[in-house]
């Protein structure tokens, strides 16, 4: 979950490239309109479907369940739902996910935990993206962490750039640690673990 333009699709693209061969990844792209995101993911060879919400500002469990029907789950290890770009509504609807990841990008500012409390409260981790742009924005890390922890004490916060790859390893480690609680990674393309 994230605001529009925070870098959800870019993050997913880099994640898919990094984990190819280790985990079978599927993506449900949810957008109000357009298929640009699904096309981007599809070009990377991951299984993807595009869901259009027709104006609705969030996904819910029912829509997610219907979207999942399009996948053969025995063929997948990790399934991402790239939710509608919105810091408000998606936080209110449990889609049935195992983990909730939110992305906040540096350009959006460090005061977002104060203004959009629920999103920070319900998420399991926040990825602060676009750190390569820190030089041009007034983003106070200490202030942000303080604000985030006010809403969600001990919330894991990772700083990265999906664009340059900086800090990405920590995200992949978190993701694969969580995934390993549920599924085992492929050892190679021809063996299943």
């Amino acid at each position, binding site marked *: 979950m994230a605001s529009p333009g925070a870098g959800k699709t870019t993050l997913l693209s880099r994640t898919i490239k990094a984990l190819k061969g280790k985990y079978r990844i599927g993506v449900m792209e949810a957008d109000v*309109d357009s*298929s640009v995101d699904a096309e981007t993911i599809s070009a990377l060879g991951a299984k993807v479907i595009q*869901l*259009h*919400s*027709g*104006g*609705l*500002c*969030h996904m*819910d469990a*029912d829509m997610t369940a219907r979207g999942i029907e399009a996948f053969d789950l025995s063929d997948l290890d990790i399934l991402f739902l790239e939710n509608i770009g919105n810091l408000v*509504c998606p936080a*209110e*609807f449990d889609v049935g996910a195992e983990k909730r990841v939110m992305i906040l990008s540096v350009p959006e500012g460090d005061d977002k935990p104060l203004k959009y409390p629920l999103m920070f409260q319900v998420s399991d981790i926040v990825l602060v993206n676009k750190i390569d742009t820190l030089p041009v924005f007034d983003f106070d890390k200490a202030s942000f962490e303080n604000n985030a922890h006010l809403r969600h004490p001990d919330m894991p916060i990772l700083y990265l750039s999906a664009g340059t790859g900086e800090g990405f390893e920590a995200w992949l480690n978190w993701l694969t640690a969580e995934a390993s609680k549920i599924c085992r990674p492929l050892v190679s393309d021809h063996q299943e673990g």
Partner: protein
Amino acid sequence: MHELSIVMHVAKTIDELAEENQLAKIGSVTLQVGEVSGIVTDYFVDCWNYFKRKHPLLVDSELKLETIHAVTFCEDCKQDYETVRFGRICPYCGSEHTYLLTGNECIIKEIEAE
């Protein structure tokens, strides 16, 4: 998402109607909800039940919901089709130049009152 605000708008419309027509009690409210209006009907009913308890005019009223089917029109092949089944892409010609004809409305159809 906006279910509660819709409930409040409906209540406001009914209040105005009740004043114009000197209605003392509402027996039922029939709403037509579009298939793709985004309204989650279970949640909507919860919001309605929560709201009507504090609203003397509506407290004993029954909420009736009817579904308006969603139909999409294709500008390229000029055919229409079921939105929920096929989505934005025309199942006849594969075009993306489509728009919704019906299905995202939320209409107060009628009320029973005295």
